C-alpha cells in the first residue's frame, strides 16, 4: 500500500497547483469581507479549506463546558432526544457519527436548528431562545468528539459531553478518512 503514496502526493501537488491558478478569478461571494454567517463549503479537495467566514456569535460556545452541559439538559427538555435519542438517532439521523448532512460547524448546526430541514427537522428559530439554540448546537457538536465518545460507559452515549474545542473548526485540509472496514456504525444516509 505504501507504493501508492508518491502517486497520491503527486496528485495532491497537481491539485494544489491548479488551485493556485484560480487566483486570477474574481472573488467568490464567501470571500467578500462583508458576508457574515454564511458558510460556503470547500468542495474542491486540495484547494484552500480554511473557513472564510465565522459567525461571531459562535465564538462564545467553543471551549465552553457550561454550554454543552446546558445543551444536554435542553436536548431532553425540547424533545430533541425523542427523534435523535442520546445521539444515536431514530426518527431523525444519528448525531454521534461523523456524517453531517447540513454541515457540522457550530454555526451550521445553529442554522439547521433555526431554519429546520425539509425531511422532518422542525424550525426552532423564534420558538427557542437563540442562546439556547447555540447551547444545543454545542451539545450536538460535542456528541461525536473523540473525548465524548471515549467517555461513554454502558449503552447510553453523550452523557459526559466534552466542550467543543475551537480547533475542530480549523480545517487542516483533506486527509484520508479512517479505515471503516467492519465499522458497522458507518451508515448509509439514504434520503435524509
Amino acid at each position, binding site marked *: 500500500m505504501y507504493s501508492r503514496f508518491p502517486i497520491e502526493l503527486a496528485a495532491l501537488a497537481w491539485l494544489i497547483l491548479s488551485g493556485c491558478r484560480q487566483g486570477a478569478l474574481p472573488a467568490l461571494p464567501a470571500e467578500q469581507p462583508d458576508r457574515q454567517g454564511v458558510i460556503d463549503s470547500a468542495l474542491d479537495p486540495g484547494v484552500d479549506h480554511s473557513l472564510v467566514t465565522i459567525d461571531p456569535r459562535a465564538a462564545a460556545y467553543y471551549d465552553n463546558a457550561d454550554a454543552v452541559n446546558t445543551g444536554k439538559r435542553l436536548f431532553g427538555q425540547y*424533545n430533541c432526544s*425523542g427523534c435523535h435519542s442520546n445521539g444515536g438517532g*431514530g*426518527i431523525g439521523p444519528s448525531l454521534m*457519527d461523523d456524517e453531517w448532512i447540513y454541515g457540522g460547524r457550530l454555526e451550521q448546526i445553529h442554522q439547521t436548528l433555526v431554519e429546520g430541514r425539509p425531511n*422532518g427537522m422542525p424550525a426552532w428559530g423564534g420558538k427557542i431562545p437563540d442562546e439556547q439554540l447555540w447551547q444545543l448546537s454545542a451539545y450536538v457538536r460535542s456528541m461525536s468528539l473523540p473525548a465524548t465518545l471515549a467517555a461513554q460507559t454502558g*449503552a447510553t452515549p453523550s452523557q459526559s459531553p466534552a466542550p467543543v474545542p475551537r480547533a475542530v473548526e480549523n480545517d487542516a485540509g483533506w486527509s484520508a478518512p479512517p479505515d471503516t*472496514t467492519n*465499522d458497522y456504525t458507518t451508515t448509509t444516509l439514504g434520503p435524509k
Partner: protein
Amino acid sequence: MRAFIITIALAIGPLAALAQKLPDPVPANEVFSAQEIGRALSAPTPQAGHTAASLANAPADDGQWTMPSKNFASTRFSALTELTQANVRNLVPMFTFSLAVNKGQEAAPIVADNTMYIVTAYPNYVYALDLTQPGAPLKWKFAPKPLPASQGVACCDVVNRGGTVSNGKYIFDTLDGQVIALDTKTGKAVWRVHLGNISKGETMTMAPLVANGRVYIGNSGGEMGVRGWTTALDENTGKLLWKAYNTGPDRDVLIDSQFKPFYPSDRGADLGVKTWPPQAWQIGGGSVWGWITYDPELNAIYHGTGNPGPWNADQRPGDNKWTTGIFARDPVSGAARWYYQFNPHDEHDYDGINEQILLDMPFAGKMQKVLVHLDRNGYVYVIERHTGQVLSADPFGPVNSSKGVDLNTGRLIVNPEKQTKLGVEIRNICPTASGSKDWNPSSFSPQTGLLYIPHENMCMDWMSMQVNYIVGTPYVGADVHMKPGPGGHRGELTAWDPVLRKPAWVVKENFPLWSGTVVTAGDLVFYGTMEGWFKAVNARTGELLWRFKVDSGIISQPVSYRGPDGHQYIAVLSGVGGWSGAVVSGPVDPRDGSAALGMVNAMSDLPKYTTAGGTLYVFALPH
C-alpha cells in the same frame, strides 16, 4: 515505527468501532410459566367441533390475494395445493423486481386480475406488474409524492403495510396522511383525500380495510401525542362517512345507547375524558395503525387502539380509555358496540393494534364465534365476538409484566414489580415495548387448526422521564433499553393451538420475527427473517423444508397466489427496516442503545447480517 503505529491503529480501530456488546438475556426464572398465568373460563373441549373460519368470512379461495389479510377472517390461508412438503425443496425464484426504496418494506403484494400491486415504504411508490407476460413487466407506476417532512414524525421507520384491490381500484395510504384510490387499469387517481395532519404528528402506515363499499382507516402517531381515530370513507368517492376518536367525550368516540361493553369497568359516561387528567386525552394517543377486520356474519368491524401517550404513565393517572383495547363497531354508522381494554393504564407501550382472526371454535362444549388477538402484552386472547367477553388469555411468550387476566373483571393483573416509575430504571420487564408480538400478522390453517404466530422474544429496562408536549415532536418520556428474552434468541415462530391453549411447536430465530406468515393447503408455512432468509416449514412440525437467502432482511407479508398459467406462486418483499430494523435502514448508530426507542440495544448486531434493500421476490416450482 510510524508504520507500526498505523498498523496497530488499523487493527484496533474497527474493533473499537464495532457495535456495542449485546446485553445478556433475561434469565428464564424471571418470567412466569404459562401454567401460572394462563386462564380460561372452561377446560378445552376439542370434541365439540372443528376450528375454522366461516365461509362468509373466508370464502372459497379464488387463487387471488386481493387484501393483505387474504379474507375478512384474516386467516392468510391459501388453499392452493401445488406446493407440497415433498416438492417445496425445488422452489426457485421466477422473477424479481427492485422497489427502488431502501427502507423497511412491510406490505403484502396484492394480486388481482392477473396483476400484482405493490406499495413501497416512503415515498410510497405503487407498482403494477403484468403477471401474464414473461418477467412480469411494469404496467404502470404511481408516485404520490407525500410531504418529505412526514419522515420526521414517523416513529419507527417510514413503512407502509399495503394496499387493497376492490372494484377496479387499488386503495392505499401515504406517510403524510393521504388515502388514494387508483384505477387498476390506468394507475390514475380516482380520488385522493388528505386525512392526516403531519404538523400534529399524524401519519398513516396501516393497510386500509375495504368492505361493503367503505374504506376503513386510522392514524398513526402514538409517539407524537396525536389523538387516535378510526374513519370510514365512501369507496367510490373518498367522502368521509364517519370518524370515531379513541379518546375524549362519548359523542366523539361514537358511543351511544347501543354501547354494551361486557365488563363494568368499561361502562359509564365519558370515560374517554374521566380516565385521564384534565385535557390529557386530547394528546393521549390511542392511534389506529394496525389491523381493522370486517365481520360479514355479525355485521361488525373490529379494531384495536394504540398506546396511550406519553409512554411515561406517571403523567396520565387513570385507565386512559379507550387506548390499548379493541372496539366492535357498526360498520355503517361507526357506533361502538363493545370494547375491551387489554392494558388499562398501559405502562409498557403495549399497543392493542395487532390482528384479529375470526374463527368458529369449540369452547366450553359448543361452537362459538370468536376473535383471536395476539397482544403486545404477551397473551393470546380468545374473545367472544357478540359480547366482547374474554374466554381465555394465555401467554405465548415470556411474560412478567403481568400475572394473567382476571376473567371475572376482564382486567389484566399487573405485576407491581414491573410497573414503570419516574426516574427509576425498572429492569428485565418482559415482554418489551414492541411486545411479545408486534404488527406482523399471523396465519391460521383450518387443516391443522393452528395459528402461526411470528413474534419476538425480547424484554427491556425502562426508566420513565418527565416529557413536555411540544406539538409535532415525540411525546414519549421513557429511556428504554431492550434485550433478548430467556434463551437469548430474539424471535420465535409459534404454532399455537387456540383450543388446547398451548403451542404445538416453536421454531427459534436469532432475530425477532418481523414478517407475517402465510400457510398453505400443502401444510407449508412461509415466513422471512431479518437476516434475509425466506423459509418454508412443515405446518405440523415446524421442520425446515426450504430456504432462500434474499438481498435484505424480510419484514413484510408473504402471499400465495395462482398465476395466469395455473401454477402456484409465493411472493414476498425484502427490505429490512421498521422499528426493529431501523439500525440498518436508519441512519441509526448502534453505539446508542437507547436509539430507536431502545430497540437498538437489542439489535446492534443486525448491520453485520444484512443491509438495506427492497426487492420483490416471486417463487414457484420450475415449469
